[in-house]
């Protein structure tokens, strides 16, 4: 369940460059969509979203471990947008995220614009992580833990966490939007 960029020829890239495509729309109707948010991503918006989801989850999910894993994936996904999302002319980091429940588990999907140079690096990191077994992910996580804050570590700790918590059920996609930006989307099942 991915997010897609609006059709080619849409020049209004800075503001709401992506729309809910048909696939997502039907999921929204037929499956259990818990939250859909489209807008600016900063720590100020992320924290209230997390609170809302947490409240929701207490009521819906019995297992504490599952609640915590979903919460962790949400934090890492949303904070990645808030940290690395491309800033538009209005000083905003525009992005979109949704969370819902499908037969396979809970899913978290997110999409945002990023600079093309960043897209390449990110794509490489994600592809590398996708090849690792749980044991290797854990080893990589521990190795990265000891690196001081601010180091350019291999894969971000957050990304490794996302792979671990979802048992690597992660799909990602990059679509070039123009010469400067790409649209990056990620879909995670927990």
């Amino acid at each position, binding site marked *: 369940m991915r997010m897609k960029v609006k059709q080619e020829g849409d020049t209004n890239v800075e503001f709401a460059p992506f729309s809910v495509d048909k696939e997502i729309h039907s999921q929204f109707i037929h499956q259990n969509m818990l939250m859909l948010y489209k807008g600016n991503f900063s*720590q100020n918006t992320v924290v209230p979203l*997390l609170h809302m989801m947490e409240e929701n989850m207490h009521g819906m999910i019995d297992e504490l*471990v599952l609640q*915590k894993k979903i919460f*962790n994936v949400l*934090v890492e996904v949303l904070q990645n947008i808030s940290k690395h999302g491309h800033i538009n002319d209005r000083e905003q980091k525009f992005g979109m995220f949704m969370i819902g429940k499908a037969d396979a588990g809970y899913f978290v999907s997110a999409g945002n614009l990023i600079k093309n140079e960043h897209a390449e690096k990110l794509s490489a990191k994600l592809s590398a992580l996708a090849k690792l077994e749980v044991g290797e992910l854990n080893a990589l996580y*521990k190795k990265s833990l000891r690196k*001081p804050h601010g180091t350019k570590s291999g894969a971000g*700790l957050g990304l490794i*966490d996302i792979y671990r918590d979802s048992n690597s059920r992660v799909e990602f996609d990059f679509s070039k939007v123009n010469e400067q930006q790409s649209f990056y989307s990620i879909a995670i099942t927990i």
Partner: protein
Amino acid sequence: MKKLELANTEDTPYLLLDKDNNKFEISGRSLPEDAFGFYGAAHEWLESYVDDANANTELVMNLDYFNSSSARNIVEMLLILEKITETGNVIKVTWLYKEDDDVMKGRGEEIQSVVELPFEIKMI
């Protein structure tokens, strides 16, 4: 040394580093976007502390959630505390987790495995 005490907020934990009363604690939840902004002050405080630590230091950690940015900063703090083991003074970390919270228990074990100081994981 003046104590460092930070009240908990929506996205940062309660933090207490108090040499005079020999109390060191971090509790609550930690999810600042850039955790160094929060933990930096603690790193600095600890760098001074380790040179003249109390005879017996126990850092009690009672977190119910921490994000990846926090994880790295917490480990960095513990790496500073490791220096106490070289001085003849005693340092110990007590990691608390609530019953049923296998996630925090597991994360405690993980952090325990990457640092080299006495580290006890206890259920409360």
